[in-house]
């Protein structure tokens, strides 16, 4: 009974959707409606034909970037909603399930929604918005008519690059930022959408500035920030060169991505009401 049980994880997922169905329905339909409305308006007023510059008329990247930020804040950042009030926390903590099962169920729900369902919603909205714009609006707005259908590439956060270090760095961000926001919900509750992004920005800037600050504390203070960002400090690893700071951040982000979930588990286990 005290071993991990898939059946209990599924029951916890059912519990999550039962108790928060309003939130999930609002999220899905609200996202679909808002993205459709925005893209319909945006696509209808496109005047510049990018094909003349050898580009695609694929005007979805900007919107998708902000959509991803919204997903992180309003989906991943809303983990463990039952722990936000005393009375619901009592019920949730006393549900006969292991803390690890509760963690897994939250992870499965939030990350499936964030990385599968919500991108699909965006794609469907984009298809609908393009159709509405082309069929009904462009004749009035005078926008371009050769708008491309959304590409699958738009939905993938990692773009093509020759540099493997680029992939590793982007992957570290993809792993770390959602994990920090997921765990942050247990600490900051509804303020998570403000506090964790603030924390990540402050942490990254502090880390990047740290050599400059420490050097000025312990040395003669003659070193400028540019000295530390000088390319002569670039470290070569397996043929690729990058500033030392990038490697420092890589270690921190990958470590942070793992530690976030461990912290989340123990925060749940030790939670008192």
């Amino acid at each position: 009974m005290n071993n991990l049980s898939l059946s209990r994880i599924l029951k916890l997922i059912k519990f999550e959707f039962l108790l928060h169905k309003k939130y999930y329905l609002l999220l899905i339909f609200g996202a679909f409606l808002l993205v459709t409305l925005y893209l319909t308006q945006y696509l209808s007023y496109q005047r510049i034909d990018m094909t003349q510059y050898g580009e695609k008329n694929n005007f979805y990247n900007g919107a998708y970037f902000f959509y991803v930020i919204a997903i992180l804040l309003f989906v991943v950042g809303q983990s463990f909603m039952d722990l936000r009030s005393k009375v619901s926390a009592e019920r949730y903590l006393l549900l006969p399930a292991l803390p690890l099962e509760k963690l897994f169920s939250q992870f499965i729900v939030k990350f499936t929604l964030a990385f599968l369902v919500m991108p699909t919603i965006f794609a469907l909205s984009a298809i609908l918005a393009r159709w509405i714009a082309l069929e009904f609006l462009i004749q009035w707005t005078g926008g371009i008519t050769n708008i491309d259908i959304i590409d699958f590439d738009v939905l993938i956060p990692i773009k093509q690059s020759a540099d493997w270090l680029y992939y590793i760095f982007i992957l570290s961000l993809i792993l770390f930022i959602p994990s920090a926001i997921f765990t942050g919900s247990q600490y900051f509750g509804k303020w998570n959408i403000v506090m964790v992004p603030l924390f990540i920005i402050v942490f990254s800037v502090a880390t990047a500035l740290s050599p400059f600050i420490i050097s000025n504390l312990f040395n003669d203070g003659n070193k400028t920030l540019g000295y530390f960002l000088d390319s002569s400090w670039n470290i070569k690893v397996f043929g690729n060169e990058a500033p030392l700071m990038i490697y420092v951040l890589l270690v921190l982000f990958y470590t942070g991505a793992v530690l976030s979930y461990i912290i989340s588990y123990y925060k749940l286990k030790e939670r008192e009401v």
Partner: protein
Amino acid sequence: MISIKKLSFSYPKKPRLCEEMDLELGEGKIIGLLGMNGAGKSTLMRLMAGLLKPVSGEVKFHEVSTFDRAVSFLNQMIFVPEKVSVPEFLKVNEYVSIYKDFYTGFDSDRFEKLLSEFQIIGNQRISNLSFGQQKKLQIAIGLSTGAKLLLFDEPTNSLDIPSKSTFRRVLSGSLQEDQTMVISTHQVKDIENLVDQIIVLDEGKVKLHADLEALENQFVFSQGPQAPEQAIFVESHLLGAQYIARQPEGERISGGSPDLELLFNAVIAGKLTGEFLSTQNQVTHE
């Protein structure tokens, strides 16, 4: 069933609520947990439920620490808090399905019967229920889970008079031999003739832990125009005095089952303290 050893607890930056408390709760009892406001009744309930972690000492359910919140413990325990929060947008049956999923011993027939006794319709929205009805719903769920340890914190708050009566009737007929129910309340009259063991908390300590039957064998709880000289506690009464006196040697006067309010006041006044269980025979009084 519940073993509390050298338990000390305080909320952050607050004075100690209990210090080195020892308590053992056996099976098959309905236990009334009494105390003044702020005595620590709800806190003790939460420690037993695994919602709070002792500062030191241990609270165990069948040798498993309650704060570990192991599935084997949670499946055998139900806690009904004073302030019940039931998702109002759900229907009764939808809400109950949560407990049916997680409590392997959930008895649906018993639940339907309790709903009927409490006059709650199963397929209606919870938002249509009053706060008192929501409380009855939670009590009905609690009694149907098949849990071995039932913790009810102020269960009769918000219940109307007929419902309190139903609650007493339902409880007295519901408990199995291997179940233990702890009812924390300051409304002593609501649990009279219901509980068979009493715990009185005061100033962070267990001042009295007694089986009512054992108390009845040792003491007389009675009232009259005057209290006897050897009475250990006396309260004035409309018709004279209510008093507690020791049973005379070699005699047994039947004064009726202990008046819980009188007993509680005697304990708080320090006139009757100690542990008096059917397996032990230790009582102290001034």
